């Protein structure tokens, strides 16, 4: 096997050279906090070969030396039952040739759950690799009346033990100094036994010699849970919390996003004013700056989402929310933790897909990711408003309710149900043959989220988005602009076509009508003809790949609307320009309804594809999502067109 083309090659984003340490620990043991504290923000994400488990690596600087730390997925055992845990077992297996064996292992042990955590440590010690134990939450152990002699624990285990409390820099310094010296870490005389029963006696003897006094049940946590998990109050607080959560990523983010958008719009206008060459001005102003704007515009939402998720997670409430929702999510074959991701997708699928990181199982993560884009996002809202306005007159009523509102509600409902159904199908499909994973979820004590971890979480999410997804969005935006603007037309050409070069509306309509995008729109006409779409709708659909709401403006341009953002008037007058329906109204109820349904199901969003690519580490899943959603969108739109056409 070639060293460069192998699965550990550069493509998987492995940092090479120097000491490599793996970070192992159970969920909630303070593992990620430690990783962030040690590596700062010098981190890199990639994927493990063959599986879609995210690989997090970072560099810790100790003096002049650099130590690479790999943050392995959280696990309770080295007997793997999921792809994520298989990765942990594989990385720690010195006989596994596909993954480099680390020079040493850092194991985080939560001092308050030592009896359980030592079982995992015993398994890790069986690998024979040098081990350093990082003891966390010793302050909480003391608060709850437990005791532990760290020096005695070190003697009993036969490996170095460093207690790190919260973000204490002196504690960290001691650990950092030990990092590059993994070769000289003390090793146990005898490894712990493998037999489960003997291992338990080993754990008991270690606890005894370390003078471990069991912490009392956390009374503070019990008291908080009595309210937060109460059948009535707990449910009310849950809905209030989720409502606030949704409001913040939806409502609070909007003015921030508008501000970002207007800054980029102004920049674009400035460029158009000062650059005389129309092509260059258009390219710089609309394609490049516009493209950058459509990347940066997501940042407020992502930052707010990760602010809230890390607050919910750091405080321990995320587990409680998942606990309350688990039964409901189980219907879709998912678990409670998927709820937050689906809820976030109502604002936008980008943060929604990024939120799936909190799911411990890769299968659940994919199933949720595949369903998430079907949740009605805010970008669809503008399209829905436009099309619902064409479909239903404002005065129409269904019983006591306005018909437009009913249609909107139906679209949201169908989107949510379809998302759940899709997740269920993908979960079934991916679990085929394999055993059903048991569900278990630790309920950690309530803790105050640390400011530093919250800031780190926000920063790394934004940074990752800009670096990986930004490029994809930018390229697509520029590409689409070129398609919609080329070839160029001189004033003479415009005049000979009967268009006044001074009339901006007419010119932009003419340009779009004779662009390469229009050629594509014509070329794909046979595909969309059964849905009632003509080539101009196709151009709009194509343009909406950069962002769904662009559909409205593109269609406005095509329809030569005076105000492309409010094209309703112009659209109602549009007729088919050729083909068997020539002269007939284009936006019949059947076509409009089919278009609505098409937008409900189709993955008309390059940003979503980009973020899926980043989160899954391959083009496979975005391709699967695009494919299945297109087929679903076409079929559902066709059915809608047929049914509505027959009824009207």
């Amino acid at each position, binding site marked *: 096997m070639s060293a460069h083309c192998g699965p550990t090659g550069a493509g998987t984003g492995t940092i090479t050279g120097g000491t490599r340490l793996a970070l192992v620990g159970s969920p909630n043991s303070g593992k990620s906090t430690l990783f962030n504290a040690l590596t700062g923000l010098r981190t890199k994400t990639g994927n493990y070969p063959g599986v879609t488990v995210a690989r997090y690596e970072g560099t810790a600087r100790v003096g002049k030396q650099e130590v690479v730390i790999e943050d392995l997925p959280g696990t*309770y*055992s080295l*007997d793997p*039952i999921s792809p994520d845990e298989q990765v942990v077992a594989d990385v720690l297996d010195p006989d596994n040739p596909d993954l480099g064996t680390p020079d040493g292992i850092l194991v985080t042990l939560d001092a*308050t*759950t*030592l*009896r*359980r955590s030592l*079982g*995992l440590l015993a398994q890790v010690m069986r690998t024979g690799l040098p081990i350093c134990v990082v003891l966390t939450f010793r302050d909480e152990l003391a608060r709850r009346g437990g005791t532990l002699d760290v020096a005695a624990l070190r003697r009993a285990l036969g490996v170095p033990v460093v207690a790190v409390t919260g973000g204490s820099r002196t504690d960290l310094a001691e650990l950092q100094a030990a990092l590059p010296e993994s070769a000289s870490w003390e090793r146990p005389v005898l490894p712990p036994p493998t037999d*489960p029963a003997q291992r*338990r006696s080993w754990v008991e003897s270690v606890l005894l010699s370390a003078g471990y006094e*069991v*912490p009392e*049940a956390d009374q503070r*946590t019990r008291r908080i*849970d009595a309210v937060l*998990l109460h*059948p009535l109050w*707990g*449910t009310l607080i849950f809905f209030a919390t989720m409502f606030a959560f949704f409001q913040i990523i939806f409502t609070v983010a909007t003015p921030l996003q508008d501000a970002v958008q207007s800054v980029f719009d102004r920049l674009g206008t400035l460029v158009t004013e000062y650059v005389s060459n129309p092509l260059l001005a258009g390219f710089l102003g609309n394609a490049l700056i516009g493209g950058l704007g459509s990347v940066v515009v997501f940042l407020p939402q992502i930052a707010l989402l990760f602010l809230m998720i890390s607050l919910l997670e750091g405080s321990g409430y995320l*587990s409680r929310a998942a*606990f*309350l929702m*688990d*039964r*409901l999510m*189980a219907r879709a074959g998912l678990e409670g933790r998927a709820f937050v991701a689906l809820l976030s997708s109502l604002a936008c699928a980008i943060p929604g897909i990024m939120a799936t990181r909190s799911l411990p199982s890769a299968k659940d993560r994919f199933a949720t990711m595949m369903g998430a884009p079907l949740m009605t996002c805010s970008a669809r809202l503008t399209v829905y408003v436009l099309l619902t306005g064409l479909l239903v007159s404002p005065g129409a009523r269904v019983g006591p309710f306005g018909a437009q509102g009913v249609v909107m509600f139906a679209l949201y409902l169908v989107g949510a149900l379809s998302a759940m159904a899709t997740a269920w199908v993908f979960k079934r499909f991916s679990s085929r043959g394999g*055993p*059903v994973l*048991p*569900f*278990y*979820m*630790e*309920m950690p004590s309530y803790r105050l989220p640390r400011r530093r971890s919250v800031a780190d979480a926000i920063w790394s999410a934004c940074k990752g988005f800009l670096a990986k997804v930004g490029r994809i969005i930018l390229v697509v935006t520029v590409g689409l602009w070129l398609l919609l603007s080329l070839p160029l037309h001189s004033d003479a050409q415009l005049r000979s076509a009967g268009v006044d070069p001074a009339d901006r509306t007419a010119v932009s309509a003419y340009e779009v009508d004779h662009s390469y995008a229009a050629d594509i729109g014509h070329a794909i006409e046979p595909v969309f003809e059964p849905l009632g779409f003509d080539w101009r709708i196709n151009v709009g659909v194509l343009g909406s790949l950069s962002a769904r709401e662009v559909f409205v403006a593109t269609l406005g341009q095509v329809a030569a609307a005076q105000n492309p953002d409010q094209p309703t008037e112009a659209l109602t007058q549009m007729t088919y320009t050729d083909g068997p329906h020539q002269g007939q109204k284009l936006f019949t109820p059947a076509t409009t309804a089919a278009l609505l349904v098409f937008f409900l199901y189709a993955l008309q969003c390059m940003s979503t594809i980009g973020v899926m690519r980043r989160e899954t580490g391959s083009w496979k899943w975005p391709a699967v999502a695009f494919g299945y959603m297109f087929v679903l969108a076409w079929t559902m739109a066709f059915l809608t067109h047929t049914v509505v056409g027959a009824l009207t």
Partner: protein
Amino acid sequence: MVSVQLGTRRKSGPSGPVDSAPVDSGPDARLSDLRPGTSGRITGIEESVEPSTARRLFDLGFAPGAEVTVLRRAPLGDPVVYQVVEYEIALRKEQAAGIRVRRTA
């Protein structure tokens, strides 16, 4: 750790939940049958449980001899929070039904 005898359900019949009879005796129950507020000592894992799942339950602390307390049921009935080896963990009914316990309180 896998016993042949399947757990026979004990109905919380007329004697009621407050049972002053000697604890740590009587037939086994499933963990999922215990009511919030009661405890039991684990006697084994049902044979029907997938070996990998049985292994994981063991690693999570649901090992024979361990004391489990039922803390709280979710409003929709499932899952349930248990306390085992000094920490709290939620299990779905499906998993809890695979764990055999002897009631202790």
